[in-house]
């Protein structure tokens, strides 16, 4: 306790030098917390949006389906029968059928995915309820990104060409009945949603689907003829992207932390050099060398405690403000094909806060300890005389 009291007195006594070190360290602390909070917030939002709009709580794929290979679609479809049909009736899964097609908005040629979705499904947030047949026309639903790139509006007709199950071309005009807005670009860009039964009829794939999206209650139930893909697999791309972002941000905040720690290191070296007489006195009064080392180490690491307090003083109101208004993202941010909302609300988990505090305190203690090792080599008599050692 004595060491803490002494350390605190010494630090406060050092005046501006201490507060400069503390300020830089507190800035590094706040930046680390903010950056991690922002990435965690994005991660939570992105994962929940992707699950709500695209992946559900897992999917059952046709064994030949490969989401990265559009050519696999030609063969990756099967009739939804038995257990799968039963679960579909119970609204526990919803079948999706996909086929490659070409759309011709304003005479331009655009490769698209035609996706058949049940208008009555409730598992995904896609507003499939608006896929109501009108005067024998095929109703279609597109996302706002697709609408922007094709200049299509609600009520427009667009010609679509596709091939049926035998490879024979067919083409018809479809009617855009709704344009939806989603944070998940992978369900929007170059995609057109039509009623499942219409697509099955158009392609000659009666009662067939490419994959089945599960709701939360299924829990990996096996369905014969379909391969279950869990959320970990389906969100792999997103998780990898967040990990990459975290890796990149780690470099930035470690650099910032290094600058703050270097300042503490310098202060410690200077303290030991200038306070040799004080060190000699402590030892002469009966303190062991290790106790003096502890005293100086605690003094150095106290910088981090003060930095945490200072950082909290301006960081907490700042972060509360950011949480209230969110961080606006530029419109082009989702062009990389990753789910991102218009505003990111940072999320500060207890684990992240504790680990950041530990990182700052432990690293400050380590850099404070190294210069103090010289004390163990000091002769108390020379130290008392103030001889440079």
């Amino acid at each position, binding site marked *: 306790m004595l060491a803490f009291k002494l350390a605190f007195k010494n630090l406060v006594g050092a005046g501006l030098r201490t507060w400069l070190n503390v300020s830089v360290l507190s800035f590094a602390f706040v930046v680390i917390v903010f950056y991690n909070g922002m990435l965690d917030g994005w991660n939570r939002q992105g994962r929940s949006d992707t699950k709500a709009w695209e992946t559900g709580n897992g999917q059952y794929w046709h064994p030949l389906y490969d989401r990265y290979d559009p050519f696999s679609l030609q063969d990756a479809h099967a009739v939804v029968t038995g257990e799968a049909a039963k679960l579909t009736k119970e609204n526990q899964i919803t079948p999706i059928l996909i086929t490659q097609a070409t759309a011709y908005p304003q005479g*331009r040629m655009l490769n698209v995915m035609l996706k058949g979705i049940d208008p009555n499904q409730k598992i995904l947030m896609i507003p499939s309820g608006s896929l109501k047949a009108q005067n024998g026309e095929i109703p279609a639903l597109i996302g706002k990104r697709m609408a922007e790139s094709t200049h299509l509006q609600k009520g427009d007709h667009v010609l679509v060409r596709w*091939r049926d199950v035998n490879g024979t*071309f067919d083409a018809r005009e479809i009617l855009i009945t709704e344009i939806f807005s989603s944070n998940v670009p992978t369900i929007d860009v170059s995609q057109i949603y039509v009623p499942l039964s219409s697509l099955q009829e158009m392609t000659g794939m009666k009662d067939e689907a490419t994959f089945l999206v599960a709701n939360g209650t299924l829990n990996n139930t096996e369905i014969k003829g379909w391969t279950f893909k869990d959320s970990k697999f389906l969100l792999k791309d997103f998780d990898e992207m967040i990990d990459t972002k975290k890796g990149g941000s780690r470099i930035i905040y470690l650099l910032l932390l290094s600058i703050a720690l270097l300042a503490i290191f310098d202060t410690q070296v200077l303290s030991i050099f200038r306070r040799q007489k004080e060190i000699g006195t402590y030892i002469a009064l009966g303190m062991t060398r290790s106790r003096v080392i502890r005293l100086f180490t605690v003094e150095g690491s106290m910088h981090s405690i003060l930095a945490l307090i200072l950082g909290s003083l301006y960081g907490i109101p700042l972060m509360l403000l950011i949480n209230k208004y969110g961080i606006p993202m530029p419109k082009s941010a989702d062009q990389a094909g990753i789910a991102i909302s218009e505003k990111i609300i940072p999320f500060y988990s207890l684990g992240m806060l504790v680990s950041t505090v530990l990182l700052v305190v432990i690293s400050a203690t380590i850099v404070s300890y190294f210069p103090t090792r010289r004390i163990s080599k000091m002769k108390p008599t020379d130290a008392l005389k103030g001889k440079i050692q």
Partner: protein
Amino acid sequence: MEPTIIPMKKLIISIILCLFLFPVFAQDAKNILEKVDRNMSSKNRIMESSMTIHGKRSSRTLTSKTWSEGMDKSFSEYLSPAADKGTKMLKLEGQLWIYSPTTDRIIQISGHMLRQSVMGSDLSYEDMMDDRKLTDLYNAKVIKEEKLGDRNTYVLQLTAKVDNVAYFSQKVWIDTERYIPLQQEMYAKSNQLLKRTELKDVKQIQGRWFPTTIVYKDMLKQGNGTEFKMTSILFDQKIPEYIFSKAALKQ
């Protein structure tokens, strides 16, 4: 308004005429297609051609030399532009390989890849590869006679009789004297016109009439289609067998 009444006698005559004429037309259609096949096919041919792809903003021209034997053997080498020079294609009994000099590799185009466009043109590899006879794929009937430009033509309506055809129905305009197709239209199941092919500049080569310019047009997209011009063509030549081998691709 009084309803129009068709006299019974007239109606019976019309039905009888239809019943008699329909088989005649059906028979004619088959004969016509066979005559076209005979006219258009040869033992082999060596041809130099240019393919101009008219895009929305610009056009580009590729020139090539092709050796072909029957319907199922063909070897093409692109001569220009510089970016495509040396690219070679070998079609051998339903299989297709492409050699690209930039990568120095031979790749086989198969399965769904066959549905991609050939060098960015309005033609797909599948269009190029389909060597089945029209009579094997379609039921044909003559629907009318029509003047196309200054030529008299039979208009044939072809409707698919097998499942695995790209186009459900086609209309073909065939010259009544020379028995060569002058225009072809491909339709979707919904009767939407998808592609139109015009065959022009008919010349007499080695005693047979042959169209030397073909314009392929995807009717759903903008642009003026792809123009295929044969600058020289020789029929029934001696073509060494090694031409139609994978080894020839890298030579």
